[in-house]
């Protein structure tokens, strides 16, 4: 029993401590939303770094995801004589799942890691301590712009990823599956016609809600990991690694629960 409780404490205590710290970071950030106008310059800088600079990778990957979906679904649907439904299948897959999730995973790998490394380096080089000593609000100055930038940019990137993914799927449908491109587009749009909230199709708004929450969660994990960095370069490395790992786990878990909430 002692062994089990010790093992449990060793494995669970750090995870619970990290989760509690990250929730504290999220709470303090939300409590400082009214500081955002004062932080607009830092916000725009972070939107550029985290959003615009990530766009080429997100779009490149999404284009290929759309092509892969179209190719695989097209072959399977052809077996049932439903090849023309490939537009619908690609659109629904991209907008509901692949667009938001793949965008979030790319942001976790590129932006959350960068946030953890940058803030972690500042932590071990005493720059964060210097801010505290100068009575500068660290959450407002360092964390708020980063979290809000990614929260705003994740859905924008997801919209672009969805469009590019559907276009990629269309190119494969036209060149490899012998389908008419206009027909593919009409079929794809028909999948997105179930208007149910503020004129937006449920598939679209559920994907955008997911993307917004993913963006917030990824940035919280990135910033929290950086703020907890200790012990020099190896500590920064560990904080970067844990930021990417925890962000991806969180994306997958949140994706399940958000999907369940929206579609049940």
């Amino acid at each position, binding site marked *: 029993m002692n062994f089990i409780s010790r093992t449990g404490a060793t494995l669970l205590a750090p995870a619970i401590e990290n989760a509690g710290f990250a929730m504290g970071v999220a709470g303090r950030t939300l409590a400082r939303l009214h500081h955002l106008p004062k932080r607009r310059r830092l916000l725009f800088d972070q939107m550029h770094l985290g959003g615009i600079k990530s766009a080429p990778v997100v779009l490149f990957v999404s284009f290929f995801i759309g092509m892969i979906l179209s190719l695989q679904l097209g072959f399977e649907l052809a077996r049932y004589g439903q090849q023309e439904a490939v537009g619908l299948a690609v659109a629904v897959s991209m907008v509901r799942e692949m667009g938001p999730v793949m965008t979030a995973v790319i942001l976790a790998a590129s932006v959350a890691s960068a946030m953890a490394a940058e803030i972690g380096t500042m932590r071990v080089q005493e720059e964060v301590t*210097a*801010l505290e*000593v100068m*009575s500068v609000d660290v959450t407002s100055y360092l964390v708020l712009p980063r979290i809000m930038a990614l929260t705003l940019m994740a859905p924008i990137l997801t919209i672009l990823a969805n469009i590019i993914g559907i276009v990629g799927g269309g190119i494969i449908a036209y060149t490899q599956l012998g389908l008419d491109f206009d027909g593919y587009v009409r079929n794809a749009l028909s999948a997105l016609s179930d208007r149910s909230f503020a004129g937006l199709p449920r598939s679209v708004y559920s994907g955008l809600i997911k993307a917004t929450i993913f963006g917030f969660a990824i940035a919280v994990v990135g910033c929290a990991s950086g703020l907890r960095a200790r012990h020099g370069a190896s500590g920064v490395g560990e904080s970067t690694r844990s930021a990417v790992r925890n962000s991806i786990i969180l994306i997958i878990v949140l994706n399940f629960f958000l999907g369940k909430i929206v579609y049940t």
Partner: protein
Amino acid sequence: MIRMNDVHKAFGSQKVLQGLNFEVDEGQSLVIMGPSGSGKSVILKHLIGLLEPDQGKVEVLGQTVNIHNREALQRLRMDMGYLFQHSALINWLSVYDNVALPLRETTAQSEQEIRAQVEKVLGLVQMEEAHEKLPSEISGGMQKRVGLARALVTEPKIILYDEPEAGLDPEMSASISKMMRRLKEELGMTSVTVTHSVNCAVTVADTLAVFEHGQFLIAGPPTDVLNSDHPRVKTFLGAALD
């Protein structure tokens, strides 16, 4: 102005402060020397409210330093400057913006007033020419001077120096020590300095203390301490002079 009364601090089983007592009067300069890892910087971190004593009391400017009262601590920190061992400048801000940061973040001063104050302190540390440079574009000695300007920009009553000569060549180290002395004489600031450098201590100190095993082995005027017969003090200062 600064008082530590029977302060104890331990990190796990390692006792770093063991009933430390001292006082620094207004306008006076205390320099603390001691072996690496003895916990000298821990004293400064207690004074600025980054650490809380396990036992005892830390008073600065007549107030008990309480790390749980964030507002009172922030007000107290406004009257204190801190020069970090490795300067701790914000790496993406220019020299000017680094020095302006505390004023922009904690005061309601206009950009014109901030500019005047920043130019004044950059002049004091002879860094007027480096406004637009990033910390990575200037030398360690220059970074230290910018860090000093940032510590001075809010016109604090007390300044804490954490190994101001660390990582500097002897010439630059002497220049920083002279600058610290000049600032004390011109601005009448109270200071506590942690250093390994006897030259820095002799230049800056009104009171020199040697710290080891959580206590001051000796504290007094620098000439008295340097001529002390205390065997451990003689050994340490002899090694430091070599």
